[in-house]
């Protein structure tokens, strides 16, 4: 998780919590990937945590719902829950667009 030597704009460290390969988690990942390519090209990193394999990791980020997208960086931490199908809301949630 080396912060990219971000020139002007900040790097994004995103963590996607899922519980197994469910249609919702697959959809969420696809939506996330697409959004990142469009808006954060070259300055993002996505980490996927499958809670079925690592249940002990759920408490740390206070995960309840899945899928949950956590923006670790830049701070402050943001959480977006759901399959990320509403790109507008995801962008607002990540502070990439004005509310």
């Amino acid at each position, binding site marked *: 998780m080396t912060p990219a030597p971000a020139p002007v704009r900040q790097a994004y460290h995103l963590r996607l*919590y899922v*519980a197994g390969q469910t249609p*919702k988690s697959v*959809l*969420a990942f696809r*939506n996330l990937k697409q959004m990142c390519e469009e808006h954060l090209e070259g300055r993002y990193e996505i980490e996927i945590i499958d*809670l*079925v394999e690592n*249940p*002990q990791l*759920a*408490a740390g980020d*206070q*995960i*309840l*719902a*899945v*899928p*949950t997208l956590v923006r670790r960086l830049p701070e402050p*931490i*943001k*959480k*977006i*829950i*759901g*399959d*990320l*199908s*509403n790109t507008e*809301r*995801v962008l*607002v*949630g990540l502070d990439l667009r004005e509310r």
Partner: protein
Amino acid sequence: MKKSQSAVGLLVPHEPRGPELAKTPTGIRGLDEITRGGLPKGRPTLVCGGPGSGKTLLALTFLVNGAIQFDEPGVLLTFEENAEEIASDVASLGFDLPELIKTKKLSVDYVRVERSEIEETGEYDLEGLFIRLDYAIRTVGAKRVVLDTIESLFAGLENDSILRSELRRLFRWLKEQGVTAVITAERGEGLLTRQGLEEYVSDAVILLDHRVHDQVSTRRLRVVKYRGTHHGTNEYPFLINADGISVLPVSSLALQHAAPLDRVSSGIASLDGMLGGKGYYRGSTILVSGTAGTGKTSLAAHFLDAACRRGERCLCFLFEESPQQHLRNMRSIGIDLEPWVTAGLLQFHADRPSRYGLETHLATMHQVVADFKPTVTVIDPVTNLMTVGTFADVEAMLTRMIDHLKTENITAMLTSLSSGQSEIERGETTISSLMDTWIVLANDVAGGHHRRGLYVLKSRGMAHSNELREFVLTDHGLTMLDAAGRSPRDAA
């Protein structure tokens, strides 16, 4: 019950016909009696009540008792306070949560949901919560689970319909795990819970209530629902004190007391004579009524003294005097109770009636009785308690107390202070039906003399005297006079 002389069939009208559900004991005094053994094993129970009604404490006690007394580890999923806050809340009750966590008898997971930090978009489920709970259950091998208070999720998440269907799934899942769960919920208006959770948890529902009436607070517990089991449906007063939570049950309003035949002396030979020659029945309840200064407390002191001489354990509740005053006053008529206190046979409990509600008093008395295990109990005077509650309340609560004493085969003497308008007053009539023996003390001023008299108004199950006997209080106790107005001592 074993000592009973009555037909066995009469003693067990409440036994269920079919096999009862398996139960998980809470270890909470009184609650396990009301529920005939505890909460439904392997099923969720909903505990609802307003803020400060004791929900969290009840739930935590269930967990801690499980871990310590019943070798059943537990999981606490808390939505309101973190583990440190909870641990410090209950440390004063002697619950050492950090130690239980360290020894893997308890797992605490604090679930924090902050709506302002969360954006919702699209479909989701609460599998994350399930995974956390499952992980915690497996970590300690939990048999008990508490969710406190899961309704907080409604404030944290926007999508009500997802939440509701997920909660439904959660309660079903808990059943599949075979854990006995307690789910706490906030009392709602017109509903048992604010979010209608009672709809999802159908096995057992317990309602806690905290009322303040005339500046006196009373806590009550009611089992609203308990599928597949007999349970008491009344409201039961409960206490939260330094020992935690305890519920005062009505043990058997079905009148199934044993009726022992042995007799106990009143401590006054001539009074024993008036009571069929042998004194009171053991386990019976005796009312001693009279106006101020008629000698009620003295009569009770004789009774206590005699019981202690027999080596019985005696408990004396004082609602008028302090134990020191009582001891001093009784010494003045030649009864020294202090050695019995020193020997641990006699225990005094003095309290101001106005200190708490009637129910709290009775719940406290219940607890003291359970701790001290007396065979004789005196309440002096019971009328002072009656000023604390309404008439119907007083009757109901005294019924419970007397009932409990009878069930435990404790001989009880209650003194009652009459105001003087009539010898027998309304308050006394109310409780008289509960009494086996009723002794009335009366003063009479005639011919420049203050004279004291007593008679046995009733005494069930024995041929008692109907005489009005004159007596005097001397420095060697209460002494009956003969028909000519002489004490036997004088005559001798």
